């Protein structure tokens, strides 16, 4: 079984983002970029399935600018066998990404596609579900456990009230939640090896996909600032403030 893992290049989660003064977006100049943390979990899960004899090949895919090649190299350093970049300078929205991934999936014929549940930049939480719709496949989002069986996967999902377990037929889409696994660090020898693994570059036009955005960004603004309040000296003063100043407890 082949597994496809879409990985997105995003601003590193430790970076404090700043909204541009002209309100057109956030400042991405010279900030550290990394693989979306949920996608690291996705690559790790694919590797564990391969190491457990459930998968034969793991292919990483990214859609975006040339620099996404770094993200793909990271995926291959974790262990992916090869990579595909769908290269474009157009700012991709989830529907466009899902269409590109659907076209790649039709060529590659994977039985399983593991995506992150959300990208930490745009926080959309859409791409996997859209891809499942376009391919007509089953889906299990927000996964915290994946077991591959005969023609099916048994997936435990993190839902609002707790956990639920689904049996889904293969081929299927799974999106990762935080507790699916703890991704390994890429070792230096594996980083070196990853440089020699195959990385194909295709264009959206080669896949016959129109990536024109459906949403336009009117403006991007700073959220209302919350300013620090006061430090209280002790518990008695805290109780007094809550009762008499904030009036949030009786």
């Amino acid at each position: 079984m082949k597994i496809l893992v879409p990985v997105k290049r995003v601003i590193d989660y430790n970076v404090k983002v700043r909204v541009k003064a002209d309100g057109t977006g956030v400042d991405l100049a010279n900030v550290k970029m990394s693989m979306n943390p949920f996608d690291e979990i996705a690559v790790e899960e694919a590797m564990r399935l391969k190491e457990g004899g459930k998968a034969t090949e793991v292919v990483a895919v990214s859609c975006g600018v040339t620099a996404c090649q770094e993200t793909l190299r990271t995926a291959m350093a974790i262990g992916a066998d090869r990579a595909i970049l769908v290269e474009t300078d157009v700012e991709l929205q989830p529907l466009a990404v899902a269409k590109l991934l659907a076209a790649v999936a039709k060529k590659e014929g994977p039985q399983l596609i593991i995506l992150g549940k959300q990208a930490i930049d745009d926080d959309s939480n859409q791409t996997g579900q859209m891809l499942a719709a376009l391919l007509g496949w089953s889906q299990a989002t927000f996964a915290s456990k994946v077991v591959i069986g005969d023609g099916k996967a048994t997936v435990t999902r993190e839902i609002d009230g707790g956990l639920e377990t689904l049996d889904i037929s293969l081929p299927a889409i799974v999106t990762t939640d935080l507790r699916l696994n703890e991704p390994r660090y890429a070792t230096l020898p594996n980083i070196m090896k990853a440089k020699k693994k195959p990385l194909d570059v295709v264009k959206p036009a080669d896949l016959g996909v129109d990536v024109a955005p459906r949403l336009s960004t009117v403006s991007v603004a700073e959220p209302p600032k919350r300013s620090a309040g006061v430090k209280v000296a002790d518990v008695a003063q805290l109780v007094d403030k809550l009762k008499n100043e904030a009036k949030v407890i009786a």
Partner: protein
Amino acid sequence: MSLLVIAEHDNASLKAATLNAVTAAARIGGEIHILVAGSGCGAVAEQAAKVAGVAKVRVADAAHYGDQTAENLAALIVANAAGYTHILAAATSNGKNTLPRVAALLDVAQISEIISVVDADTFVRPIYAGNAMATVKSADAVKVITVRTTGFDAAAATGGAATVEAVAAGADLGQSKLIGRELTKSARPELGAAKIIVSGGRGMGSGENYHKVLEPLADKLGAAMGASRAAVDAGFVPNDYQVGQTGKIVAPQLYIAIGISGAIQHLAGMKDSKVIVAINKDPDAPIFQVADYGLVADLFAAVPELTAAL
């Protein structure tokens, strides 16, 4: 304009999050319908019909909608989408699971977690863990939207008198089957609906401490209980306690963060709370930058003292 709101429910009762989505629909304006898809969900449809501002409730009652699996639900919504300009659901785990699938089947964008409505095509949504607010405009004929419940007040649960009509169920696609659910049972209020939340982080040290130290305080305050990711990852509490960018988004009257450092991913889930209290032994913990009242203290001494003082 005509808007379809997807009901969030458990086949027995309508979940409060639906009421926030109805308010978002009312802000957009137009005739509001609610779709109740479930199994033996007649009582939910009756409750939905009483929600103020709703004109019609449409009910698809069939066994294969009982578990809210995305494949069947999305197909049903798409089959009934004709005539609507907007399709909305609360950004719950169900809404987030299903609506992107609906949007892709309709070949339109999905707009995630809106917090306000500018006009019928234009919405505000947080990005980058709430560190930026994007105003986005849709060029699609149908807008498929999830609604962040903290951005909109709940519509009145009573006072409406909508008509109720049955809609035909679609085929069971048979692509996924529910094996089981492990739901956290608690007599406490739900995180999303609570007026007061007591939340614990890695500083609690263990699951045993979390319960021993925080439960008495939560009991006194009638509070819901939450946690940081670190506390969930360490196994102190189940996953549904997690507050943050990738957990639950809450905005109670009072949020008490105990042994939580205040990482941006955590702040993203609670910084719209009316009043924030932080108890942390590190005076430089970033949580103090958003706290209205900060207490620098060892939580194992301060929390029992606070509980006793209330």
